[in-house]
């Protein structure tokens, strides 16, 4: 068989490395005993569904300040430029586009199982060597998931390398920035628990993204552990406006534990997101609902595009604008809120697990909203606009 131009063989101390892998696997199986919810069927198709993607992105609530927060990386240069206002606007637009890339959600796919694919059995080669041989095609420009990596076992069998060896060899020849060949000790249960206790959620998730591929079992275990911890500590704001918020919401909706997140959204007055979360819940669990709510909300609430908030001049002549700024809501927002209220309320009545808590939160928000509404109309009258 020929595999491209560069063939490299090396007698790897494969047997030794396999032992290491076994140890890490054991560690993981120990930590997985604690409330590890698996995806019972492949979540890939529903996650990549454009409707779901749209909902998840909207729930993330992108804030440019958080996306472009100060990072301490070795190349941290700043460029100062003189610009006309048109150029400035163009730059803002570019920055918003780049932000879109920076909050790309890590894909959710099902766990890939190892399968043994034997190419040939050559008993004549038995005891030729007392170590395995790993043969890797290191041609430049091949995607690392397509790269051919084979193993010649000591008994002469030639087979495709298992995932753990593939990952290691790929990392040796085509290193991923930030990925370690040995598993960082941070992901061992005791250290992971400490990191969780210190609420280093974003750090753990970022590192897990780099260290693991989305189809690895360890990745699923670690992310679910983090999501569960967030669900208990209720620090959803830590992930809001990061790339991990979408997958988290997806996980909650899939496993029907959205109550706490919904409660947080209601409390923070992100009613539209609450409605979206409920819609996501219905969609993932195959429950029929009135899909027209999306259109209704869309027409009423402009997608809060971050560029506009940056570009809009602060002083405005328009009275409507001024009142809106004073109260924080416009007439459209109020009607949108009413629609969301109804939508969430039906969910709370039928499907919610923490009914009382959610109902109380809804009640409280409704009262404050009514007050704001009164104030809004009062101000309008005072300014003589009907």
């Amino acid at each position, binding site marked *: 068989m020929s595999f491209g131009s560069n063939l490299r063989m090396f007698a790897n101390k494969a047997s030794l490395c396999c032992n290491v892998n076994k140890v890490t696997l054991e560690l993981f199986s120990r930590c997985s005993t604690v409330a590890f919810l698996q995806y019972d069927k*492949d979540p890939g198709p529903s996650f990549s569904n454009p409707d779901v993607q749209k909902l998840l992105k909207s729930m993330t609530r992108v804030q440019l300040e958080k996306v472009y927060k100060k990072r301490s990386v070795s190349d941290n240069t700043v460029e100062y430029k003189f610009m006309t206002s048109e150029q400035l606007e163009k730059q803002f637009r570019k920055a918003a586009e780049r932000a879109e890339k920076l909050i790309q959600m890590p894909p959710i796919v099902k766990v890939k199982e190892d399968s043994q694919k034997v190419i040939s059995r050559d008993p004549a080669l038995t005891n030729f060597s007392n170590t395995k041989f790993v043969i890797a095609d290191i041609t430049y420009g091949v995607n690392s998931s397509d790269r051919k990596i084979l193993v010649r076992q000591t008994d002469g069998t030639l087979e495709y390398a298992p995932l753990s060896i593939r990952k290691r060899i790929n990392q040796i020849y085509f290193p991923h920035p930030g990925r370690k060949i040995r598993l960082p*000790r941070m992901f061992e249960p005791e250290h992971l628990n400490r990191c969780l206790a210190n609420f280093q959620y974003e750090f753990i998730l970022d590192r897990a993204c780099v260290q693991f591929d989305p189809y690895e079992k360890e990745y699923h275990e670690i992310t679910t552990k983090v999501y569960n911890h967030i669900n208990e500590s209720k620090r959803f704001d830590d992930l809001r406006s990061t790339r991990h918020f979408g997958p988290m919401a997806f996980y909650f909706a899939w496993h029907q534990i959205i109550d706490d997140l919904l409660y947080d959204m209601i409390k923070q007055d992100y009613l539209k997101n609450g409605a979206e979360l409920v819609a996501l819940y219905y969609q993932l669990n195959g429950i029929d609902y009135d899909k027209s709510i999306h259109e209704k909300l869309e027409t009423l609430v402009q997608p809060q595009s971050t560029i506009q908030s940056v570009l809009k001049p602060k002083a405005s002549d328009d009275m409507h604008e001024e009142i809106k700024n004073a109260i924080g809501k416009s007439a459209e927002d109020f009607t949108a809120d009413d629609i969301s209220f109804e939508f969430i309320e039906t969910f709370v009545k039928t499907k919610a697990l923490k009914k009382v808590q959610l109902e109380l939160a809804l009640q409280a928000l409704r009262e404050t909203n009514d007050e704001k509404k009164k104030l809004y109309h009062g101000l309008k009258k005072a300014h003589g606009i009907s």
Partner: protein
Amino acid sequence: MSVINFAFLARPNIFRNFLKGNTSRIFSLNTTNYSTEEPPEVQEAPETVTREPSEKEKARDRTKVIPVETSIRYLKSAAYKETYGEYLVWEQYRRNHKGMFPPRKTRKTCIRKGMLSTGNPCPVCRDEYLVLDYRNVDLLKQFISPQSGEVISYSKTGVCQKRHQELLISVERARDFGYLTFDVPFREYDYSEYYNEKNESKK
């Protein structure tokens, strides 16, 4: 309080005081100046001592191993606060050298045969309660640049070569264990790699 007076810190009382919760810490001058200005207690010591190490020698002795837990507690204590104030551990340290330009590298080590072998030990060696360890996050953080996220060079901090090596190792370990957070490189996913293939295989 001038910079030179920071040179190193009177040892024995501090340890006891710190453990007792007593926060007072004393600065002393360099050992070379130490004998010329005679506080009364020090003068008493040589009279009583026959073979016992003098106060001066005791202050330079570094054979005692301080556990990390003590060091971690020390960095949070009032004694530490009083010694360094708002400054970082290395910020007020100045190297001694002849001429205008300091040698490119700092000295190899400040401690030889368990004793401080220099009058101006580096910021880590001079305070024996600063223990470089991966769990001692408060100390390690002081040596990491907030701009680049890398360990600051010894040409800036003045740490001796041996301690600098130790520092690099403990920072690396701390990152491995998740004690120190850092900015992870961004990973961009190619969605087609994860989703399109499946659709093809289904067909």
